[in-house]
């Protein structure tokens, strides 16, 4: 039978972008080891509604670790204690009966808080709009097998393409940098012949946009890689720097 547990939560509550926020204590007595962390918050919310209080707002959608909607600081760690796991996939078996867990939103200058645990990550979309694509339109594409691609390069491109855009890298970075997110897209596209053509231009535009959004610089802490639910490698950041310098010298 599943183990029952009692969990104490300290949750960041903030009514709106400008409102003051604070940590509020709650206790959930009917937690169990098979529950996901977000299901624990669901149970808390049902409890709060029952008591006539406002539930805790948080984003989630797929609950399978792929859409990147969820994102919480759990016990001070982006997505919580289990490595390579988005918080929607974190299960209560990672905790002990009686634990007290602090839950906070992503904190970064470029991710303003909307309400409670929900933040505005639209800056990520604007970085992609700045150049995170191959400039092709629909139709007229050559046969998919016209251009062979080395398997290891396709695989490496896939490693970077796996980024879910959740923002944990930013939240974990002491500088609030979006370098891992930005580099993941740059590396994914640069590793493929289809994307290589525009690599320098793309890199310069995306990196400049990242700065314009108020993200900090990278100073090689690698905290981002440690919390990334998809295990994206910081080697991508070196790649990004090289492509950027090439772009600079090409003028």
């Amino acid at each position, binding site marked *: 039978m599943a183990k029952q547990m009692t969990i104490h939560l300290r949750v960041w509550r903030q009514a709106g972008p400008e409102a003051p926020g604070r940590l509020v204590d709650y206790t959930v007595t009917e937690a169990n080891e098979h529950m996901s962390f977000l299901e624990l918050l669901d149970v808390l919310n049902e409890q709060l*509604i029952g008591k006539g209080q406002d539930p805790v707002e948080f984003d989630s959608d797929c609950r399978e670790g792929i859409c990147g909607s969820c994102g919480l600081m759990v016990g001070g760690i982006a997505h919580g204690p289990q490595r390579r796991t988005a918080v929607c996939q974190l299960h209560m078996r990672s905790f002990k009966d009686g634990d007290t867990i602090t839950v906070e939103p992503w904190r970064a200058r470029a991710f303003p808080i909307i309400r409670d645990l929900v933040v505005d990550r639209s800056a990520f979309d604007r970085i992609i709009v700045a150049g995170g694509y191959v400039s092709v339109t629909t139709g007229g*594409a050559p046969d998919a097998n016209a251009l062979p691609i080395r398997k290891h390069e396709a695989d490496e491109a896939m490693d970077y393409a796996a980024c879910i855009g959740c923002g944990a890298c930013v939240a974990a970075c002491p500088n609030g940098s979006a370098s891992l997110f930005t580099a993941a897209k740059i590396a994914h596209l640069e590793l493929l012949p289809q994307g290589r053509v525009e690599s320098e231009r793309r890199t310069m535009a995306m990196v400049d946009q990242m700065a314009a959004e108020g993200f900090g610089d990278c100073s090689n802490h690698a905290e981002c890689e440690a919390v990334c639910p998809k295990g994206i490698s910081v080697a991508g950041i070196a790649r990004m720097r090289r492509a950027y310098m090439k772009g600079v010298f090409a003028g």
Partner: protein
Amino acid sequence: MQTVSNGRLDAKVPAGRLQDKWDAYKGVVRLVSPANKRKYTILVVGTGLAGASAAATLAALGYNIKSFCIQDSARRAHSIAAQGGINAAKNYPNDGDSIWRLFYDTIKGGDYRAREANVYRLAQVSSNIIDQAVAQGVPFAREYGGMLDNRSFGGAQVSRTFYARGQTGQQLLLGAYQALSQQIAAGRVSMLPRREMLDLVVTGGCARGIITRDLVTGEMERHVGDAVLLCTGGYGNAYYLSTNAKNSNVTAAWRCYKRGAFFANPCYTQIHPTCIPVSGSYQSKLTLMSESLRNDGRVWVPTDPADQRAPEAIPEEDRDYYLERRYPSFGNLVPRDVASRAAKKECDEGRGVGETRLAVYLDFSEAMRRLGEQAIRERYGNLFEMYERITGDNPYGTPMRIYPAVHYTMGGLWVDYELQSTVPGLFVLGEANFSDHGANRLGASALMQGLADGYFVIPYTMGAYIAGADLPADVSDDDPAFLEAEADARVRIDRLSTVQGDKTPTEFHRELGAILWNHVGMSRTREGLQEAARTIANLKEEFWARVRVPGTSDTLNKNLEFAGRVADFMELGELMACDALRREESCGGHFREEHQTLEGEALRHDDEFADVAAWEFTENGPKMHLEKLSFEFVKPTTRSYK
């Protein structure tokens, strides 16, 4: 219930040989001149594969696009979660595939309840999708020679499925999202995330706009356009527990239904055979284990229901590989509906495994011996990891436990060959329409359909509408139709907030889900369906008396959003039961116990039910219109996977 035959349903299928229809259509279709396209604004609701591909393509052609989605970013649409792959009739492995075979497999897989011409077109454009995706930089799996790799999916005897690890939907969606981003950069798309469409605006007989709610500020917004593309996905979440993302809903489609778009075949839902079983009452959703696993995984239960040994300890002779036994030619790769019912049968007869006994084993040990653990890791690594994270069991060492779960909805808004609904100017793409999968969808065909609709079909068919319709240019957002639709949406929101009862939207949703799962699920009976209709009607009444929506409507308030969706799901649930009751046959995902062969297989009645039931909303209850399906090119036979 009133019935009308063919009546207003003209599928507008072009004449001629099946193989020539689409080319013939494209050859004569009216075009909008490049200079004129920018005069038109197209509202594209949804940024899944269907919506993102349509918005990107139409913007590149020069139209002005407004694109909407519920999530905080277009990239997070539910399509992102698709795992296994996408079909295309490329025949790269040279194993006998062709456009005809993909067409035929899809029609047969759908149990002969889809429109031939649409399905053929889908098979025809399938190859272009792969070309397009590769050009965008989608990192599909490759072989050492550098060519694209393929795998097999259910209902096919060829390998035609392209994949990107277990993240094919993610990669295809990111490709479409990036194409969309390119058009945003070009200034041709304005992107409006965190918006929920709450109504369709019809004026002068045509769809001319939508009402949305800004989910952060609660503000109502009116958007005017020359056509509306509804790409809002499926309604599987009616069952509460499903593999769909939490925000997937029927609301946008349901509001269109209430404004005159017919809802077709709502009873066709797909229950996917390989999902992680339910573990407790707090469960918020179910997780799919991709069908691709059935390439190498073998499904079994202990022969003796009393066998309590750990699965690894049960020797071969005490295992029943029931799919291989019952369906020797397709084995573990029978279509989903067949595999799901078979699992249910085993569990109903007491041979289920695990704590709840509502599970069967999916075992990789034989494949690991044959191919080595590394090969299995490469093929399915991320799925195995996901399984372990959720269950705490390591599938490299012990078989997975799986059970069927609601996954996909074949029903949806009725559309003609041009993907146009019964409301002129309202086009429906992707899972939201009913069009290509009949009564059962084959694996890896939804991604194909969404992208076919968005990249390759809608640019022609919507263009034809714009070129041919004489749309008044002066419709503005203070047109009475806009004011009325906005007022209606406000009233609904206010009504939800004012009840202030004692039950949460989630509690109602769970109850609705249980009713649908029990009576409109894998196996249906007349009595059960009548019972469902009755209990849903009661639940609906209770909802409006007792629902408690916390908070206010001028901030981010997810319970308010969910409450509105639950209200619509209840109304839809009644229609699903009604449609299932009327369909006195078994076909695909719709299994009526009264209609089965002696061996327990689905029994179709083509003479009476080779049709599409399209429901029209009226104040006096749903009115049914029938589109008779004629099979000119294939001969419906009894599906056999034996």
